[in-house]
């Protein structure tokens, strides 16, 4: 579950929102309208006002590390801090996740600078999912992927939904939006508007 109370990302009007376990909100809008800022505010990566909560955590009541381990933001551009892939993976078994996006354990030895954009995108998703976060904040998760990898990543996200994860998905792709049945919101001119008002509570 994800609940936002008067969440005020920089430059956006305050947002109220309740998403149940397993629900999905797709977010669209023109470039520069604040879709990324919205996700970053939920993850508490920028200064923002208001409150956010999951089923078990209230953001202001836990430290930022705990919050972000449970509310995983996966940015459009992934960051890497070691030379090879392995050290970027948190504790846990990455193998089932790697296999679900068409990779295997051998990729842990790969050099980061030689990864393709698509490989980076899939590996960034894998490393964020190892700790089984309750909420996924996905920023254009398939922007660099071919049709086959896109299908694999979408299936992985849907599997997580089926296991109770709440998903907020920023996407430009209308067809992708329709493949994720659920709620939709549109950001423009500093306002986030819901297509159906039932989540705006």
């Amino acid at each position: 579950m994800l609940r936002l109370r008067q969440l005020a990302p920089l430059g956006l009007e305050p947002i109220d929102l309740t998403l149940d376990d397993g629900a999905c909100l797709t977010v669209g809008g023109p470039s520069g309208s604040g879709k990324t800022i919205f996700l970053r505010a939920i993850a508490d990566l920028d200064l923002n006002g208001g409150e956010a909560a999951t089923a078990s955590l209230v953001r202001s009541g836990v430290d930022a590390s705990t919050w972000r381990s449970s509310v995983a933001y996966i940015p459009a551009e992934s960051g890497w801090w070691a030379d090879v892939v392995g050290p970027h993976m948190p504790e846990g078994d990455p193998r089932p996740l790697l296999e679900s996006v068409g990779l295997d354990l051998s990729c842990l030895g790969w050099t980061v600078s030689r990864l393709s954009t698509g490989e980076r995108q899939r590996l960034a998703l894998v490393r964020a999912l190892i700790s089984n976060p309750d909420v996924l904040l996905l920023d254009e998760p398939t922007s660099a992927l071919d049709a086959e990898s896109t299908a694999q990543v979408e299936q992985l996200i849907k599997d997580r939904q089926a296991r109770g994860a709440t998903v907020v998905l920023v996407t430009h792709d209308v067809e992708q939006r329709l493949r994720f049945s659920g709620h939709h919101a549109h950001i423009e001119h500093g306002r986030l508007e819901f297509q159906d008002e039932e989540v705006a509570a």
Partner: protein
Amino acid sequence: MTYISLSVGDLAVGALLIVANGILSLGLGLKLERTLLISTFRMIVQLTLVGYVLTAVFELSSPFWTGTIAAVMIVFAGYEVSARQERRLVGVWSYGLGATAMMFSSTLVTVLALTTQIGPSPWYDPQYAIPLLGMVLGNSMTGIALGLNTLTSNLARDRIAIEAQLCLGASRWTACGPMLRAAIRTGMMPMINAMAAAGLVSLPGMMTGQIMAGVPPTEAVRYQILIMFLIVGATGLGVLMTVFGGLAYLTDTRHRLRLDRLKQSRMT
């Protein structure tokens, strides 16, 4: 002590070298002659004034005036550190961070040396206190400016990698640890290199000055070794304070990277 006093005429002969450089600049179209002239005059005026100020302060030998001169020196050093930053901090810390760190580190080290090792009477005797503070400040300033510049450049450069770690639940200290260590290392390096090269590649200025003033070389060397210890101590402490303070300012307690507290790069 025996030393040879310099007359104004002696200096005039030396100034011919500046003139020679000016002619070179004109001849080769380097366009340096104007800055060369201004810098030369600034140097002459500043040093002459300092000569008179120091003479007056030495005669007064009052803790108040010695403290005032020390404060002015720290203010200028803080300004220098800030001026050498490619990206400055926003607000009062742009200037205050380096100045505060130097105020603590340089004052602490200088007072320690005056009260326990050199021991003039009174301990704040400006003839010892001011040159000592000057050397400690001047050298630790370089390290502090370098350390802070390395920190801010690396944080700006590695923003995406740092935030990727924060997103996975790392603390700001873990995510920025490599940048923190690189900044401290860079800040310490010039003094470590200076110690290694001392006597072989370079003859430190203070030692050279004492020898020319008639102090036996072995005595002068002992002074220089102490000065090196003081400078390294002040640099280490100052760099540590500045870099940790800088990182604390450029992140926050919610473990966010706050590059909004950093101004845009001024260099192209």
